[in-house]
């Protein structure tokens, strides 16, 4: 169990900043966005899990490989959120702030941060959810340890009790995390409406 | 109330409208009465929140008055009467997935008019509002002024007895609005339509109407009726005339001190 949690944590730690940052940068530069848009759209709608076998062929299946797969899965889903975050920065406010003599740092702190906070939290939530999904699936498919593997084994052996108990546990835990993150997201959004610095 | 004369198209009789229940009840309209003759262009002007729109809703049959009644051609209004009443709102509310001509046909489609007849009637109205070249455009390809013209055409397609307009030009910029005034006056002259026009712009009310009913707020009530003696057809030049300015000032005074002019 620890293995799974660790894997999820690592995957999340990698993909969240990576995807959000690249999405954000894409959003800031109009030219890049236009050029990558069709490619991204294509990549997003394909079931990337189907590449897992190839992946395994290439690299075998171990801790690191699970992580890479989950990262690949979550990456394309979180990038659009980073993009949306970039677009949600109120350009008009920036102009006003610059005219009033605000420094770069001040602009980042007082305009960028509160503006992108809700979407960033949303992106973090999605990154977490899909990291978990990716890790569990990779474990189910080709691992010898971890929650995913156990669940699959129990199912095949018809050991319903441990199966249902664990499934329920995972589901409840995920819902709890998801809901708390949505609360944070809502709070960040509300702060935005009231204005003022973060 | 005076006896029904044959040219009296609409009669609003002592209409009151109360929202909510005591002790928090809100009186939107109090004892409002109005008569309109065929072919008249009546403007109702008043400050925001004075109940103008509520009055229009009641006249259109979209709302039932708490007290009093509305009669059209002597018949009491008890629900929407699209055959008698055409309505134009501030938002054109054209169905976004239908083209201009289809939007105009819509009321006819709702009551089962066959397709070919629908199309010819809709085209006739497109000619009237001078948009026949845009028949197959979608609303998002039309400007604000054009959309309102389509909305007017849609309101007229069933040849209603009266056209009720609720601040239809309020969302348009000044130049478009001035052009729309001319369009509407032109339509009025050509079709002899009976029009009730609600606005909060004093100049618009004076420029367009034969009669201006001034309304006060809280509770909504009529406080003055001013006959507009500007000659028809109205021209843009009149907008700068002294007579128009004087009439406008009269309305302004009435609104500023509602009790003084009752």
């Amino acid at each position: 169990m620890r293995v799974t949690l660790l894997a999820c944590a690592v995957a999340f730690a990698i993909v969240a900043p990576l995807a959000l940052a690249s999405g954000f940068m894409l959003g800031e530069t109009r030219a890049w966005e236009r050029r990558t848009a069709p490619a991204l759209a294509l990549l997003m709608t394909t079931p990337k899990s189907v590449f897992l076998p190839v992946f395994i062929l290439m690299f075998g299946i171990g801790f690191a490989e699970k992580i890479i797969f989950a990262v690949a899965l979550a990456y394309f889903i979180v990038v659009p959120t980073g993009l949306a975050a970039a677009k949600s920065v109120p350009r008009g406010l920036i102009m006003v702030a610059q005219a009033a003599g605000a420094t770069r740092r001040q602009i980042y702190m007082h305009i960028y941060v509160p503006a992108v906070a809700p979407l960033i939290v949303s992106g973090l939530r999605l990154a977490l959810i899909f990291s978990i999904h990716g890790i569990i699936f990779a474990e189910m498919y080709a691992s010898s340890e971890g929650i995913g593997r156990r669940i699959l084994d129990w199912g095949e052996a018809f050991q319903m009790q441990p199966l249902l108990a664990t499934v329920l546990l995972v589901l409840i835990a995920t819902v709890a995390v998801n809901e708390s993150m949505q609360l944070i997201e809502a709070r960040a959004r509300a702060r935005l409406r009231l204005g003022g610095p973060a | 109330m005076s006896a029904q004369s044959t040219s009296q198209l609409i009669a609003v009789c002592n209409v009151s409208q109360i929202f909510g229940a005591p002790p928090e009840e809100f009186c939107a309209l109090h004892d409002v009465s109005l008569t309109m003759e065929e072919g008249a262009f009546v403007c109702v002007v008043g400050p925001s929140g004075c109940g103008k729109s509520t009055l229009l809703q009641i006249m259109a049959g979209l709302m039932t008055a708490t007290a009093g009644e509305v009669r059209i051609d002597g018949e009491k209004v008890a629900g929407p009467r699209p055959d008698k009443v055409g309505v134009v709102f501030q938002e054109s509310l054209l169905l976004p997935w239908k083209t201009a001509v289809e939007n105009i046909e819509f009321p006819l489609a709702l009551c089962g008019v066959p397709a070919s007849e629908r199309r010819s009637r809709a085209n006739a109205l497109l000619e009237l509002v001078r948009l026949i070249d845009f028949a197959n455009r979608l609303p998002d390809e039309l400007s604000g002024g054009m959309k309102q013209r389509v909305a007017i055409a849609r309101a007229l397609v069933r040849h209603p007895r009266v056209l009720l307009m609720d601040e239809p030009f309020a969302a348009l910029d000044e130049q478009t609005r001035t052009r729309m005034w001319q369009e509407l006056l032109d339509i009025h002259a050509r079709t002899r339509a009976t029009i009730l026009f609600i606005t909060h712009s004093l100049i618009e009310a004076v420029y367009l109407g034969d009669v201006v009913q001034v309304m006060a707020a809280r509770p909504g009530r009529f406080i003055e009726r001013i006959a507009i003696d500007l000659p028809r057809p109205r021209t843009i030049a009149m907008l700068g005339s002294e007579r128009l300015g004087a009439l406008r000032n009269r309305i302004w005074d009435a609104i500023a001190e509602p009790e003084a002019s009752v």
Partner: protein
Amino acid sequence: MRQLLIVMLVLAGWEALARLGLLNAVIIGSPSLVVAAAVKDGPAFVSAFAITAYEMLLAAAIACAGGVAVGAIGGASTRSSRVFSPVFSALIALPLIVLYPVVVAWTGIGPISKVIYAGLAGFFPIALATVSGIRSIDLRYAELARALGATRRQIVIQVMLRLALPAVLSGLRVGLSLVIISVVQSEMLSSVDGLGFLISYHRSLFNVGQVYLGIILVLLVAAAGNFAVSALERRFGRRPSLLQAGA
């Protein structure tokens, strides 16, 4: 046209890389290996394709019908939407994959388990999108239709449903993606047929050509599904947006 050129270039590059031994051919495969695999195991793949496509269609149908129906009920009033929306959005976040072994334990390893699991996965985003689509309807259109003389039935069918359609369609897109992913994943895990199964099977035998053939076929199905939804969106809704999910 340009896209076709790009595809050809990619294929050529792929073949070259394999031949030149720049990358281990066993792992990276090559177009020629794929063609060979198709010649050798063609029929097996065709029937697997059929099964996978069938499972996806069925699951999509269930998810759509169920999602729209429940969403319509949930969205009908403010009160019900306040209950349904948070519930659905909470359930969407779940890694439903953990439920798959449970479904298999109940219904066995055949297509039914895939259809149930994938149908469930697709159901939630569609239901949520339907609720939000219905809630977001501008009621002034309904009032306008009433003023124009529409009956209650006409208002609901001709105006309200049509207004909610774009939102429902975007939910359909997400739901369809999830159905496709779910079918593929479940076939890869516990199955005796279908494309996912074949891909896994050949992987364990190191038949690279077959593995890639299977992958290509899956991508084809995914593309077909997306194309269908895009066509629907073009006809009835807003332009297809970039921000949709696919795993």
